[in-house]
């Protein structure tokens, strides 16, 4: 195998874990495989490794249960926050909306906190449920984003208003990757707070029947928070003394393996 050809094999092997890469590259050298055979062997192993991961329900839940549907709904919520902010900034719009500056500020604050809560919990579930297929969840989240970005036609708002949810979602993913499960004493207040924050929005729009489907769908954004409650560590369980969060690196290592 030439040095040039070998660099292709090494590049493909970067998709493998460090120890496995070492063993596989050594085996290929020892067997004297050609560049083409080497690349195919490595990619074959990578494909099999990925296929094994997708036998579990976890990547399906993270990708198709959270990332894909939530990105659509969170873009709508991001727009709603941006629109509320615009309403506050523009006296004419404020007057039309029959809101005062005070009540408008409270509505904006509620919506913004709700958006952060939904995005963070969704990101956390995606990060903690399926770490090794995170790339697929990211693709499933960005596909609707690109679709909506290409069709965004609101002149008074910037296109980037669609993506207000991304920052808290990325923060949630980061936390989910570090920590596998929240403590129950944190998960329950978080889920209850998110649910309570949804009630004003639900009741305020009760007279607008046309917004009923959107408001009903918004409840779907609540489930990651309650999933965190359902999977949270109970007090006195393994790793319960790990601070705010439970089951840190030890559990992570178990799942990674």
């Amino acid at each position, binding site marked *: 195998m030439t040095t040039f050809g070998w660099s292709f094999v090494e590049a493909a092997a970067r998709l493998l874990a460090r120890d496995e890469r070492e*063993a596989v590259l050594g085996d290929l*050298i*020892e067997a004297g495989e050609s560049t083409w055979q080497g690349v195919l062997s490595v990619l074959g192993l990578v494909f099999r490794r990925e296929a094994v991961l997708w036998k579990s329900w976890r990547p399906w839940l993270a990708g198709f249960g959270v990332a894909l549907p939530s990105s659509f709904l969170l873009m709508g919520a991001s727009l709603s926050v941006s629109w509320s902010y615009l309403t506050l900034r523009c006296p004419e719009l404020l007057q039309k909306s029959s809101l005062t500056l005070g009540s408008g500020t409270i509505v904006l604050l509620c919506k913004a906190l709700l958006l952060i809560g939904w995005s963070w919990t969704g990101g956390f579930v995606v990060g903690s449920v399926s770490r090794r297929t995170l790339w697929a969840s990211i693709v499933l989240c960005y596909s609707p984003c690109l679709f909506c970005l290409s069709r965004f036609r609101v002149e008074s708002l910037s296109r980037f208003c669609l993506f207000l949810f991304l920052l808290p979602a990325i923060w949630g993913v980061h936390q989910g990757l570090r920590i596998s499960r929240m403590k129950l004493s944190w998960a329950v207040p978080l889920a209850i707070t998110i649910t309570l924050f949804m009630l004003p929005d639900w009741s305020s729009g009760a007279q607008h029947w046309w917004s009923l489907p959107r408001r009903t769908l918004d409840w779907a954004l609540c489930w990651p928070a309650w999933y965190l409650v359902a999977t949270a560590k109970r007090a006195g369980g393994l790793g319960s003394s790990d601070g705010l969060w439970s089951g840190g690196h030890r559990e992570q290592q178990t799942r990674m393996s």
Partner: protein
Amino acid sequence: MLGEFEYLMITAAAALGDDAYGAAIREEIESTTGRKCSIGALYTTIDRLETKGLLKTWMGEATRQRGGRAKRMVRVTPKGVQAAKDFYDAVTRVSRGASWVANRTRSAS
């Protein structure tokens, strides 16, 4: 019960003893069965058997022959030996009445 390839893997590893590692097992399987053994099938099966507790693996030393890369050494556990023995017994039992076994016995006698 083991699968056919799992049995081949355990048997090859057991035959190689202390020299059992990825490339050696692969060569052993290919030379004895005459079938191609891909690296993907080899390592995913090793992982599966290790998860079941039938094999134990660890990273061995690096050699010049391997471009300074370490080997993934393999050892069959007692549970693995038992599983291979059970598989072999089952195959032997089920094969007793098979025509090719009877023919072989007849031709041998």
